[in-house]
């Protein structure tokens, strides 16, 4: 294996930064503490949390998703594509041959993710409400992840694109703890706490057959 070049070193440094900063974010968030509750529970907080991470995320449990299935699907594909791009990155750094079947499949998923990301970006630009909701962070975060997924796919058949892909990965990782991509961490405690809150109150999970 040859010595790592500048793009690999930049990527490694960015990954270390992202991991360290996210770990710090997790610790700082945790440091705000958990409220001690005195009202006796009416339901099971743990069951509520389990529901929140499973059925509670499906279209049948969410009107917002049922009525925006295309956006929901685009979001799922976008996230899957980004994860696939990170998988390809790990494979590339591990020396897996670009032409292998798993890499090609990963590339296809990354392409789909990139297209979904572009679609969501287009929606954000086109919708006055979404435009109004957005800060520069929303555009930067999308462009970084979409570029990363796109270059991941391109690099599977165009080795010359690999360096650009690594640089895009480094830029993305540098940005992860700064802006909205922090939700890759905060999503978990947020959803967990919502599930526990409504579980304790007997709202989550809805009793069998009660789902809308």
């Amino acid at each position, binding site marked *: 294996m040859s010595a790592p070049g500048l793009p690999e070193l930049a990527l490694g440094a960015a990954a270390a930064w992202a991991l360290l900063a996210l770990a710090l974010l997790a610790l700082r968030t945790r440091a705000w*503490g958990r409220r001690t509750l005195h009202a006796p529970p009416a339901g099971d907080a743990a069951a509520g949390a389990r529901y929140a991470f499973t059925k509670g995320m499906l279209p049948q449990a969410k009107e917002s*998703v049922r009525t925006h299935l295309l956006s929901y699907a685009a979001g799922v594909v976008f996230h899957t594509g980004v994860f696939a791009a990170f998988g390809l990155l790990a494979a590339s750094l591990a020396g897996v041959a670009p032409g292998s079947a798993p890499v090609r499949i990963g590339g296809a998923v990354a392409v789909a993710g990139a297209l979904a990301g572009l679609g969501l970006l287009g929606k954000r630009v086109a919708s006055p*409400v979404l435009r109004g909701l957005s*800060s520069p962070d929303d555009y930067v975060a999308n462009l970084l992840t979409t570029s990363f997924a796109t270059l991941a796919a391109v690099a599977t058949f165009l080795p010359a694109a690999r360096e650009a892909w690594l640089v895009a990965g480094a830029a993305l990782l540098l940005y992860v703890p700064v802006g909205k991509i922090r*939700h890759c961490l905060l999503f978990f405690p947020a959803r967990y*706490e*919502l599930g526990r*809150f409504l579980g304790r109150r007997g709202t989550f999970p809805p009793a069998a057959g009660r789902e*809308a």
Partner: protein
Amino acid sequence: MTVPAPAALESRIAALTDADLARGFDAFRSKLSAAEVSYLGACVRCGLCAESCHYFKASPELENVPARKLDHVAAAFRRHATTAGRLLPGLVGARSFDREMVRAWVDAVFGRCSLCGRCSINCTVGIALPRVFRAARAALASMGLVPDDLQATVDNSLAHGNNMAITKADWVETVQWLEEELQAETGDPEARIPLDKKGAKYLFTVNPREPKFFPLSLQASAKVFWAAKEDWTLSSDPGWDLTNYGLFSCNDEQAGAITRNLVDAMERLECETLVIGECGHGYGAARWEGPEWLRGSYPFPVRSVLELMDEYLATGRIAVDPSRNPKAVTLHDPCNLVRHGGVREPQRRVLRRAASTFVEMAPHGEESFCCGGGGGQLAMAAYKDRRIASGGVKAKQIRETGAPVVVAPCHNCIDQLMELNKEYKLGVQIRTVAEVLADAIVPGPREEGGACPRP
């Protein structure tokens, strides 16, 4: 876009000093735990929450999107409590907690939100927005920025023991009058509406709107207890009013003081269980938030009267004839009772037994839309137009059921529904669960002399 606050608040906002602002933000921070901090950092502004909000559905503008309301609060948090917000405010949308921001908070959390929580269950991330908005309201409360009419309701409770400043003499007289009415209705001269009965099993609490405007509602509850031969009582002193607008002003100290009335009444009368009448926020305040405000568990259980009614029917303590309610009924789900309270099925079981036809609204239960009257909106005149407009969503739901009777186990919701009935020309009758049940009751055999023995 900055929306001016109600006039009385606007002058107070203009007079805020930097020290006031710092105190307000400290109050906000003091209400945050790791859960709320996660919520504040997790929104991806996907906008899918928009149509889950009745304000947005009625008026699809940016400021009505739940994520936008959250962002006003989160932007200040980012600016003052995150490194990225301090170093790169323009990039991450961080904004200072200044007078403009205070205006935005007032408009977002008092003027455009009923704390119904429908956005929470529809959030793709899972952000409990009302928990954050309650912290924001608490910050505004600490700066004296609770709308005056909402605060007046709290002040009434603190000064008089009930939110409508009803005197003890008027309350007792009303109860005695209703007892006579109950005796006339049931034909049972022994029928009672007990006051201050020490050691009763249940201390029953009501919304002051009942003695003031809807006495037949209280009489209906009393008839249910009479038919079930229940051992219950009301309190003549503070502790009979179940409402607590501290839940909406978010001054936890004042909310705790109002809750203390209930606890003191329970101790004074040595009752076993505190029963909350038909009221969404009253149930939420007493059952869920009260112990947190008082920082300790109650030495007694709290139940909704809906659960008791359901039990009476399930165990055969009350017999009903649904043909006595021949018109189709539909049910409104108060947010604080159902989505935030977990009491969803008892009222449905009661109505299925007590009415000939029960029709669900679509959607209902946890996904039900707020009527628009929650979150203290009924007490804030400055936002009346928005309240009535946002209630259009509920009015449409009601109309689509085709039911001529709307049941709402909450007197705040009933007030709003009555306004919607008039505004949207629904032509429906609005009732409590107890009123429907009371009409369906088939009196069972009673002991000699009509006495109501303790079961």
